[in-house]
């Protein structure tokens, strides 16, 4: 497709849109030529809109998996300086606050899993609530809700879900500081009270996978990965709580924009100055939303361990890492030689700190932060490591997934759920889902080629490839 935007190629894997109109900074896209050509013009339009927001630093960035989102492109990164009138955007974080991916090692080889995989799939599907209308076994009262919102995965571990050693392998050590449960409405709490430990639906899933390729033996060794190991990927977010926080603050921010003298090129970019009352309220609520997502993935990890203990008792599920890809976080970055504290929005983008960063757990620090990239159902996912060069390129950020190539509508016209399940079964992949239409909407062919995305991310200098994993069992929400 030809674009109407003045894209200038800077290098083989980076493209630039010089500021025009009300843009304060350029837009920068990391991708190869094929990926850029396949991007909808809406991506460039949204990127240019982000570049107009007050207090934005350096550039508005799009990752190789960027596609048309809400306000921000999905695969969008932007950092703001509070002291320069910078904003925090509810649209820039998105509805599914702290949606993310967690990877577990199982201590098993795939051969040990293969003979029991149908039983394992059935047990995981029975035990882990997934899909519309599913509720968890936990019912949170007001006190429990507040403790969860403050404590995140740490709270979950205190409740008996998992172990303290899990916490060091989660961003923020499992507990986002600065969470303010008081900023969360009664409606958001009510929507969440029965949803802890549920997978959700759409593109959320739990997969058992085989390590199919190792690209970097040294880093893989530090990550504890070998070829033919069985691993588990869990992709889900903050469930109803995050969605409700997003919905409510989007509206507040749109209605308050003019009083903050913010001109919104798109209402979905709704934002408020970081130093305003509304900006602070949102940050407190959004951080509590992050804790909800971390607690949720922690509980699902526990449920997964219960299933493995039952079906494959030799398994020992340990946490490789847990990343969030819909967040706004206060981080220190070096901008043109000066250290600055910035509010980095990553919407469908993963933090990817390079080797030596103090926020990486000590046991992994020498090789860089694990970056977990979920592919589409039945294809492959990737385990990467943050690269030092990413700091100057994208505030240490990388892609988050394959990114859709086709709408859900098109997908259901092209595929039928039942035949997809049969086709994947013939290839040795067991799919379990409450909805066949849901399976069709998530057809592998509806997504971009994840390998092309991670290759571009690596060659642009954002990450190093470490391992490629292929699914054996997929529980689809």
């Amino acid at each position, binding site marked *: 497709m030809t674009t109407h935007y003045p894209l200038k190629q800077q290098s083989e894997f980076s493209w630039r849109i010089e500021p025009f109109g009300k843009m304060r900074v350029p837009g920068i896209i990391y991708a190869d030529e094929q990926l850029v050509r396949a991007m*909808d013009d*809406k991506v460039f339009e949204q990127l240019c809109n982000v570049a107009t927001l007050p207090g934005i630093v350096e550039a508005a960035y799009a990752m190789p998996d960027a*596609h*048309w*989102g*809400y*306000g921000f492109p*999905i695969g969008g990164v932007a950092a703001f300086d509070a002291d320069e009138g910078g904003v925090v955007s509810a*649209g820039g974080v*998105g*509805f*599914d606050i702290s949606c993310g991916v967690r990877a577990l090692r199982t201590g098993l080889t795939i051969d040990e899993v293969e003979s029991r995989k149908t039983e394992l799939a059935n047990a995981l599907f029975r035990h882990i609530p997934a*899909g*519309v*209308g*599913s*509720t968890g076994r936990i019912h949170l009262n007001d006190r429990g809700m507040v403790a969860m919102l403050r404590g995140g995965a740490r709270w979950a571990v205190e409740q008996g879900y998992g172990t303290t050693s899990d916490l060091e392998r989660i961003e923020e050590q499992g507990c986002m500081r600065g969470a303010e449960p008081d900023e969360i409405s009664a*409606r958001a709490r*009510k*929507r969440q009270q029965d*949803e802890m430990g549920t997978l*959700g*639906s*759409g593109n959320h899933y739990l997969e058992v996978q085989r390590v199919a390729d190792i690209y970097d033996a040294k880093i893989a060794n530090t990550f504890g990965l070998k070829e033919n190991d069985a691993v588990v990927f869990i992709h889900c977010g903050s469930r*109803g709580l995050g*969605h*409700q926080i*997003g*919905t409510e603050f*989007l*509206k507040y921010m*749109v*209605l308050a924009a003019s009083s903050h003298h913010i001109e919104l090129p*798109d*209402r*979905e970019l*709704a934002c408020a100055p970081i130093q305003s009352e509304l900006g602070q309220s949102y940050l407190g609520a959004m951080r509590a939303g992050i804790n909800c997502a971390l607690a949720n993935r922690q509980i699902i990890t526990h449920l997964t361990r219960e299933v493995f203990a039952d079906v494959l008792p030799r398994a020992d599920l340990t946490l490789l890492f847990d990343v969030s890809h819909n967040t706004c976080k206060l981080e220190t970055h070096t901008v043109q030689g000066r250290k600055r504290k910035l509010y980095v929005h990553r919407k469908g983008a993963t933090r990817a700190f390079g080797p030596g960063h103090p926020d990486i757990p000590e046991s992994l620090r020498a090789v860089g932060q694990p970056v977990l990239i979920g592919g589409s159902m039945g294809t492959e996912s990737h385990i990467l490591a943050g690269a030092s060069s990413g700091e100057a390129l994208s505030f240490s950020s990388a892609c988050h997934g394959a990114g*859709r190539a086709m*709408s*859900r*509508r*098109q997908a259901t016209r092209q595929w039928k759920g039942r035949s997809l399940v049969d086709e994947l079964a013939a290839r040795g992949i067991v799919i379990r889902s*409450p*909805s*066949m*239409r*849901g399976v069709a*909407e998530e057809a592998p062919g509806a997504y971009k080629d994840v390998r092309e995305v991670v290759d571009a991310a690596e060659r642009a200098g954002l990450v190093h490839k470490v391992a490629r994993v292929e699914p054996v069992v997929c529980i689809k*929400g």
Partner: protein
Amino acid sequence: MPAHWEHFSHDADMGVRGSGDTLAQAFEQAALAMTAIIVDPAAVKPSERVPIRCECPDTELLLADWLNALVYEMACRNMLFSRFEVAIDNNRLTGAAWGERVDRGRHQPAVEVKGATYTALQVRQQPDGSWQAQCVVDV
């Protein structure tokens, strides 16, 4: 023009569009379009009534409010809706949704709606006097 609904494409998600002779009808039809993202509306029995109220200074934001109120009721009550009634007076919406509890075996709900967004959000009167109300919903 008879009231009707349709979906429109968005890269990651789906757009809902309702049309009708009145603004209220367009809102009702947009709600049906949203249900159709989750399940075939014909499969949902309109047996229980849930009242909905919302208010917003802007008619387009009111559409998002209405759809988000339905998303909220679906999530908290574990229900699906197939019949809607809306009255709009001075950007104040009084309405109701009829539906039933989710039956996962019978309904086979495809996907959960996270929220109605402000992307492609438009409420417009057409040259022929009819109304159209649309936005993208996040799934």
